[in-house]
């Protein structure tokens, strides 16, 4: 028993029981278990619910089922080898994970990232944002019983994944971002294809609107359910579309621009009351804004190198390996040992599809990070489950959970 953490002990102390809910009431309070393998918990999340009839009176989320120890693993690896590892935390926002990490290391190294690399990063991240929101919309609609929307969303997601496959060689976990830039330039024809995709995407998102915006069943399930006010959210540290749905326009892309976001014109969609419908509308509008950003970035895509020319950090171009001894030596050194990072610590926050994703890196001067920590927005946002769904119907809890959009890979890490 002593080996158990306090958290686990509290988890085990919960008894599943049925007891009278109070004097003169016929209802009983019933504590039941939902998950971890429940189709509507969006990953392996376990909820312990105390129900009075169909009303949720108390709710305790239990996490940790997909804990992978990625943060610890990262301490054993050279800096560049950490990138494919951290990408696997929040599996719907891999470009954001790797950018948060690369950005933190770049800040420690004080390397300059070429403009073209920054633009390519923006394009990929915004495509990733669209993709993540599509998965959110599709899976949420399944929970609400609208399976058609799911098919449509996954069709478009497929198109984004195809674009990722074309530019970076893999559909998920692409390790395209490297410290100092991106690993390869985009292939010929890719830019036109992305352009075509944003066109289609705008058109398609109108179709989602036509299906959902005024659908009576959707309205009944969404409007005024799962409402949490701005104060509570701020107290809990919730960020991203959940916070913006309450009317607070906090968006790091505008509030503290990184990666050339100041070059682009885009709007921050905000809601008014912070109920599920506002969350839906905000994310839906963000898809369109992301299309805008991508189009602007493609139009303004500067020429130039796609990765920093600093040979201490970036691998030399392949063609130099055959001709230049110096390049070969750098290559050997970077591959076997990796680059050294000056001692220090840095926190680098970015706006992921779910909110503020921050990466903390501490360096002790060696070629492996001494500590890597991610502030994952899903983890923080999950705290809003209880205030959002206490004293609502259990069916609304499912809808609210879907609209909170937690990704359990990111929560547990």
């Amino acid at each position, binding site marked *: 028993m002593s080996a158990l953490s306090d958290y686990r002990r509290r988890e085990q102390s919960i008894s599943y029981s049925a007891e009278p809910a109070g004097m003169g009431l016929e209802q009983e309070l019933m504590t039941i278990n939902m998950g971890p393998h429940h189709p509507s918990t969006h990953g392996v999340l376990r909820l312990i619910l105390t129900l009075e009839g169909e009303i949720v009176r108390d709710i305790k989320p239990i996490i940790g089922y997909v804990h992978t120890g990625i943060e610890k693993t990262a301490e054993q*690896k050279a800096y560049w*080898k*950490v990138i*494919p*590892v951290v990408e*696997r935390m929040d599996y719907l926002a891999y470009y954001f994970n790797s950018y948060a990490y690369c950005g933190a290391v770049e800040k420690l190294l004080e390397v300059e990232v070429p403009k073209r690399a920054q633009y390519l990063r923006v394009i990929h991240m915004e495509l990733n944002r669209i993709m993540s929101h599509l998965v959110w919309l599709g899976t949420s609609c399944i929970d609400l019983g609208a399976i*058609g929307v799911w098919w*449509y969303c996954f*069709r478009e997601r497929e198109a984004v994944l195809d674009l990722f*496959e*074309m*530019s*970076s*060689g*893999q559909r998920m*976990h692409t*390790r395209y971002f490297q410290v100092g830039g991106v*690993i*390869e330039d985009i*292939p*010929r*024809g890719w830019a036109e294809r992305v352009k075509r995709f944003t066109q289609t995407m705008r058109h398609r998102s109108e*179709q989602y609107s*036509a*299906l959902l*915006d*005024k*659908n*009576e069943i959707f*309205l*009944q399930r*969404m*409007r005024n359910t799962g409402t949490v006010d701005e104060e509570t959210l701020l107290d809990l540290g919730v960020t991203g579309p959940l916070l913006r749905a309450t*009317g*607070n*326009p906090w*968006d790091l892309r*505008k*509030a503290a621009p990184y990666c050339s976001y100041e070059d682009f014109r*885009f*709007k*921050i*969609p*905000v*809601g*008014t*009351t912070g109920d599920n*419908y*506002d969350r839906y*509308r*905000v994310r*839906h*509008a963000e898809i369109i804004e992301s299309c805008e950003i991508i189009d602007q970035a493609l139009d303004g895509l500067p020429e130039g190198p796609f990765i920093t020319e600093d040979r201490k950090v970036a*691998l030399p171009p392949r063609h130099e*390996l055959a001709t230049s001894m110096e390049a*070969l030596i750098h*290559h*050997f050194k970077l*591959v*076997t040992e990796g680059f050294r990072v000056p001692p220090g610590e840095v926190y680098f926050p970015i706006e992921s599809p779910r909110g503020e994703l921050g990466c903390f890196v501490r360096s002790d001067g060696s070629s492996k990070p001494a500590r890597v920590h991610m502030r994952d927005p899903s983890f923080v946002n999950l705290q809003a489950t209880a205030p959002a769904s206490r004293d609502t119907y259990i069916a609304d809890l499912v809808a609210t959970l879907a609209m909170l959009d937690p990704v359990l890979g990111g929560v547990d890490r």
Partner: protein
Amino acid sequence: MAWNPGEDVVAVQRAPKPGGAGGAYRAFGETLRGLKTTFGRMLERPVVYQYPEEKVPVYPRFRGRHKLHKFADTGLEKCVGCSLCAAACPADCIRVVAAENTPEHRVSAGERYAAVYEINLSRCIFCGYCEVACPFDAITMGHDYEMSDYNRTDLIFTKEMLLAEPLERTPLRTEDE
């Protein structure tokens, strides 16, 4: 509100109140409009592949199963057993044991060759760092993605398996497809 981005903010539209007369209209009118959207999709071409009869084509950069290469003219292996790929692998799934080439037994073009070269594909995360690390282009990521098997031990690919041509080729997409 501590921070105000000014006119960069757009408020999204609120939902109409559910129920009431509007609700009665929406229950019919909007449902019909939704049906129009779904039925409209019937005219579009299906986007699915009939896998496994029809293989999904991949793009040239796709990183699938690894391949080891030989020189086309001499037939010697390109790999010289330098273990750089093993050093670069984040999943630690490559094992290289090098041995000296002798005049009677020449396997590779360099001084040494890989006597053992194994990749444990059940650990591999297909990051392609081995391909990036190899200074001699001896290992590349191929295009095959059908690698499942019944035993974990069968997923440890030996040098012979990696040098061999795949039984079935994965279709490639062209750039403007």
